[in-house]
Every structure is written in structure tokens, then in C-alpha cells.
């Protein structure tokens, strides 16, 4: 049947896919992301799955791109549930196909952003011990740099390359497969996945100066998708934004909520990404999901005006604090939309709490200045504990702790970090493992939880987690200075704008120090300026006086280069 089906896409889907899964099974009851996509493709084979670069890709076409990748991984002996497959790209069609292909082969995918510094990509590839790499369109130069620094053999899939690049021959330890050598699409012999299989491995900023990984398993991510599928009830008629980098776990929501619902995922072009007003209007998108910074950018440019987005029926925000003033402006721009603020760290899978804003934007005035993060999703747990590890009462501040099926097993190959953050409490008769978020919150009956700030030195820049120690480590190395510190000016919208660095006396040029930062850090973590401080301010106890450094930004007392 497979051989016959290969020659006719429709027949192939009518036969092989139908054989693989029951068409009547509910898509979100799937145990794995791969199963979810397969089930949805049965129902929606001829509907658009992705809009990208001016064209539409149907569900069956997306599976046709993914299945050969899955077969290559399977044939290489990687389909056993714990292997990792890296995806190098920038939200390209091959990236989406690579993600699905990896999942169909029971591999956890490891997204690599082609725009991140090569050194960082190499470190992630190394730490993930990825056995395979799918290279997206226009990423060959980056792939060459990356692969030349990886000593272990890697299966390299180049679905967009008709001819293998010349440099591939110089890396005999790696095995390269171009488009011509990919098998024809069929799903028949692919293995069934397991909820315990890794789904994706993401790396976030680490306080020790190196990124730290979190492996999210299918059994973590599927409960989230079931919750939001029930909560938002997307349909095949929905058109969803895809703004998030694939290295950001909110992109998992974008892709799999949309694909599980038979909806179309609209990949917002890079150029329109920070102010996608025209894009949303032109394509009459129905669901929006972004960090608040994107809306703040549009508001600042007067590109978020009342009635701008009548087609939106859902507006979701996550990744950083959502100022109420901004939420109101968005609600007025999208008068037909339900607006929600989601909260959750990667360690607890995408988002674990949600707060729905009132329908009438005028009533937002009764909310705190920052929109609450609300209450946990079904079957998840969130509460605040005090310094003694005891649950706080209503109105008291505490550290937010999360538990439930969405909470992951811990940090990738870092039992030391895991034991610090993933803990059990004596008072919890249920014996849950709780993830200590480091976020300060207060709870109230009316609004659930409200985010108050961090207990540590992590900041969010446009939704990206940045551990300040990571930047300081780079600065120390680059400047060879005894003192380095970071500030993060807050803009009028209440969000952190960017990173500003201070360094003590150094013989190095500021331009060289900034270049070293650009080589080591993703763009959002690179300081916008470095201030040289000859007279380093200290508190009476001898610690860096951060308040005086911050104040110097408003009243310059230090030299800036």
C-alpha cells in the first residue's frame, strides 16, 4: 500500500495515515506531540498548516516534508526515545518539518537559532549531545562553523540542499544527507512514541555563565496543550501568529496548539516581527500570542490603536510582566478578543497559570498596575512559600513554587542545580516535587497570584530570561577588570528596555569588550552600552553599590565610550 500511495499524495494520506491512527480519536488525547500531529493531519490533510514566505503549506505537505526526516533518523538507529536531534534555522519551513520529523522518530528536538553566536550554538550542541542536526535553508555557513567544532559524529540532514556543500567532504566524521538521498515520504514503519520520550530540550540563560538545559517530555507538554485546547477552543478556521523564536518554549504553544486544532500557523516575517500591525490586519489573523514588549513597541509607534485588530478573537501574553496600561491598549485595539496573561517558566512547560482580563477595558483600572498571573491550569499547583519553606497566607509575599504534571524532571545533566530548585516540602502530603521559580508573588482571592519581582538576579528582556551573572562573566573575561556590574533601565511602559554594563578600570577598548559580548551572547543579552567607571562605588560593607551605578545613568558621573 505504501508504494502505491507514494505516487499520489492524497491516496497516501487516505491510506497510510488512516491506518496509523484512528480518525475519530480526539487529537488532544494523544500521548505525544508526534501523535497529535498525525491525528490532526488525518482530519485536516488538505487544510493550510503553515503560512510562510507568501505561501501556504497544507497539513499533508508538511507531513510529506517531515516523514523523510523521521525515516532518516529512524534508519540511523536514533528512534529509541532518548536521542536528541538539533534543528538549526530561523523559523523556516524546514525547521517546522525538522521538528515534526524528529518527534515522529521519537527524538527530542533541540532548537538552535542561526542568529545566536557560533560559540553558544556549539556549546548547546555539545551539552545536548545531539546525534543529528537538521539544517534549515540559508544556514549552511553557520552549520559549517558549528559542525567543524563538534568532535562527535553527527547525522546531518540538509533537506534544502540538492547538492551537498563542498566542505562536507572535509568532515568525514559526520554523515551528510541531502535532499536527493532523503527517502520518499511515508509514515508506515515509524515507531509509536511514548509519553515519557523527550519532546524538546531547551537551553536558557545560566547563572554560572553557561546556558542550562531543560528536557521537556511529552508527558509534561501534553497536559498543557489539553488545558489550553479546552480553554481557547481553537478551530480549523483560526489563523494564529507565530512570533516566537523556536528556542523560546512559547513557540511550542504556537505550533502544537495550532496544529492540534487544524488551524493555520502564520509565520510572521522577521522584518515585521516587532510591529506586525499590517501583517495581522492583512491576513485577518484570529489569535495573537506575544511577549508584552511586542505590544509595547507597537504602542510606542502608535501602531496599536482602538479598533485596529477586529479579526482577533484571542490575545495572549506571556514571558514577562504585562503592564495593565498596555493590556488595556491592546484590548481596545482588539475589541473582539479575549485577553489573557499567561505565566510559566520553561522548567514547568510553557505556562502554568493564567489570568483572564475583564471584557470591558474600562474596568482594567480596578486591576493592579501589573496584570496578575492568575490561577493554575487544571491539575497543576502554584503557591507561594516564605523563607522557611512554609506556604504564605493571602496577601503575604513569598516565592512562587509550582507542581504538577507540567513540572519537568530538572536541569539537563545538572543534578546539583536540580536539587536546589526541584524540592519536596514536608507539609505536602501529596509528595509533589515543587519547582522553586525564584519569582516573588502575592496571592489574593480576587486575582489569584500577582508577580512582584525576582528573588535573584534574573531579568527579562523582551521576554528572554537573562541571568546577569552570565553577562558579567563575559565582561570579566573580555575586560580583565576587577569589577563589572549590570543595570537594566526600565522604559515608560514598565518593561526592562535593555542591558547596560559598568566595568572598573581596564586596559581594553570598550569596542573590543562589546565585540566579545556579541561573540558570546545572544543579541538580547548584549549590553547596549558599556560605561567605564574609574571610581567604583561600594556600600559600607564593601559590596558594589548598584544604586549609585544606576543613578549614574541619569546623572552621568562615569565616562562612557
Amino acid at each position, binding site marked *: 500500500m505504501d508504494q502505491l500511495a507514494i505516487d499520489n499524495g492524497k491516496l497516501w494520506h487516505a491510506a497510510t495515515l488512516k491506518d496509523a491512527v484512528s480518525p475519530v480519536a480526539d487529537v488532544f488525547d494523544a500521548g505525544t506531540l508526534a501523535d497529535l500531529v498525525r491525528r490532526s493531519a488525518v482530519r485536516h490533510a488538505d487544510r493550510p498548516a503553515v503560512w510562510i514566505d507568501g505561501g501556504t503549506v497544507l497539513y499533508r505537505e508538511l507531513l510529506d516534508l517531515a516523514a523523510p526526516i523521521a525515516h532518516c533518523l529512524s534508519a540511523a538507529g536514533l528512534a529509541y526515545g532518548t536521542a536528541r536531534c538539533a534543528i538549526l534555522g530561523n523559523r523556516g519551513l524546514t525547521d517546522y518539518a525538522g521538528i515534526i520529523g524528529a518527534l515522529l522518530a521519537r527524538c527530542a528536538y533541540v532548537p538552535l537559532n542561526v*542568529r545566536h553566536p557560533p560559540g553558544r550554538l556549539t556549546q548547546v550542541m555539545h551539552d545536548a549531545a545531539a546525534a543529528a542536526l537538521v539544517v534549515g535553508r540559508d544556514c549552511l555557513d553557520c552549520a559549517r562553523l558549528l559542525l567543524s567544532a563538534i568532535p562527535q559524529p553527527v547525522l546531518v540532514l540538509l533537506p534544502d540542499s540538492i547538492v551537498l556543500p563542498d566542505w562536507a567532504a572535509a568532515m568525514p566524521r559526520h554523515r551528510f544527507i541531502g535532499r536527493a538521498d532523503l527517502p520518499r515520504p511515508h509514515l508506515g514503519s515509524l515507531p509509536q512514541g511514548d509519553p515519557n520520550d523527550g519532546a524538546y530540550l531547551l537551553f536558557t540563560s545560566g547563572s554560572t555563565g553557561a546556558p542550562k538545559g531543560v528536557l521537556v517530555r511529552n508527558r509534561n507538554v501534553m497536559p498543557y496543550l489539553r488545558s489550553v485546547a479546552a480553554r481557547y477552543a481553537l478551530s480549523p478556521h483560526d489563523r494564529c501568529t507565530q512570533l516566537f523564536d523556536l528556542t523560546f518554549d512559547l513557540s511550542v504553544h504556537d505550533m502544537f496548539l495550532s496544529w492540534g486544532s487544524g488551524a493555520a500557523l502564520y509565520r510572521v*516575517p*522577521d*522584518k*515585521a*516581527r*516587532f*510591529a*506586525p*500591525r*499590517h*501583517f495581522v490586519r492583512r491576513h485577518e489573523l484570529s489569535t495573537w500570542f506575544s511577549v508584552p*514588549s511586542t505590544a509595547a*513597541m*507597537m504602542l*510606542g*509607534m*502608535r*501602531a496599536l490603536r482602538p479598533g485596529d485588530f477586529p479579526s482577533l478573537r484571542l490575545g495572549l501574553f506571556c514571558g514577562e510582566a504585562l503592564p495593565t496600561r498596555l493590556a488595556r491598549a491592546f484590548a481596545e485595539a482588539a475589541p473582539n478578543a479575549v485577553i489573557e496573561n499567561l505565566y510559566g517558566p520553561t522548567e514547568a512547560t510553557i505556562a502554568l497559570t493564567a489570568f483572564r482580563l475583564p471584557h470591558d477595558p474600562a474596568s482594567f483600572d480596578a486591576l493592579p498596575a501589573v496584570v496578575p498571573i492568575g490561577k493554575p491550569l487544571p491539575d497543576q499547583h502554584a503557591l507561594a512559600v516564605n523563607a522557611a519553606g512554609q506556604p504564605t497566607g493571602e496577601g503575604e509575599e513569598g516565592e512562587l513554587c509550582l507542581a504538577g504534571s507540567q513540572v519537568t524532571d530538572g536541569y539537563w545533566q545538572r543534578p546539583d542545580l536540580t536539587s536546589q530548585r526541584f524540592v519536596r516540602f514536608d507539609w505536602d502530603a501529596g509528595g509533589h516535587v515543587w519547582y522553586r521559580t525564584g519569582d516573588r508573588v502575592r496571592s489574593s482571592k480576587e486575582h489569584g497570584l500577582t508577580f512582584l519581582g525576582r528573588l535573584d538576579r534574573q531579568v527579562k528582556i*523582551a521576554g528572554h530570561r537573562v541571568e546577569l551573572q552570565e553577562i558579567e562573566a563575559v565582561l570579566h573575561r573580555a575586560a580583565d577588570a576587577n569589577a563589572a556590574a549590570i543595570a537594566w533601565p526600565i*522604559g515608560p511602559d514598565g518593561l526592562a*528596555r*535593555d542591558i547596560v554594563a559598568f566595568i572598573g578600570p581596564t586596559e581594553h*577598548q*570598550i*569596542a*573590543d*569588550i*562589546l*565585540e566579545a559580548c556579541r561573540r558570546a551572547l545572544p*543579541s*538580547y543579552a548584549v549590553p*547596549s*552600552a*558599556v560605561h567605564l567607571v574609574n571610581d567604583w562605588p561600594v556600600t559600607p560593607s564593601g559590596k558594589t553599590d548598584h544604586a549609585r551605578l544606576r543613578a549614574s545613568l541619569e546623572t552621568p558621573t562615569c565616562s*562612557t*565610550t
Partner: protein
Amino acid sequence: MQHDVSNITANNPPLTLLTDALSQRLRQEGRGASGIDPDADLIELGLIDSQALLDMILEVEQESGRMFDADGMDFEGGVTLRRLAAAFTVPA
């Protein structure tokens, strides 16, 4: 409706102000700032991020007395100094 960029010449005030603001920013970041092509895509080249772009727009608004018209700037077409300059309009 998109603004016409054909009449944005080298002495166009917003273009001059935008070029100066970008040069200053690049210098502050320790990067070369000479000879910025007014038709180069600033985002594609990694010369500017969204926050810096907003800062630059607000700065030029303040200095030129003109308003940035987001309606007339579809960012999907590329963010160049000339296209940005064309989107600054004189208030009626």
C-alpha cells in the same frame, strides 16, 4: 497607504536626523558608523533592534517636530533609513 520614498533625498531633515541618531548609537556600541546606506535594511544587517528603533523614532519626532506615521510604514517591506524618513509627516 505607503509613503513615497522617491522624494527622500540626502538633505531630507528626518533622514539626516535618523542617520545621525543611528551613527551615534553604533559608535556607542563600538561599531563602525560611517557610510550607512539609506537603503540598507537595518534589521537584516543587525544594526539595530526593535527597542533602539523605537528610541530613534521618538528622538527624531522630538527633534524634527514631525510625527511618525505607523500606518504608512509596513515593516515587512524592510526597515531602511529612507523608508523610515518617508514615514515622518508634518502635522496638519
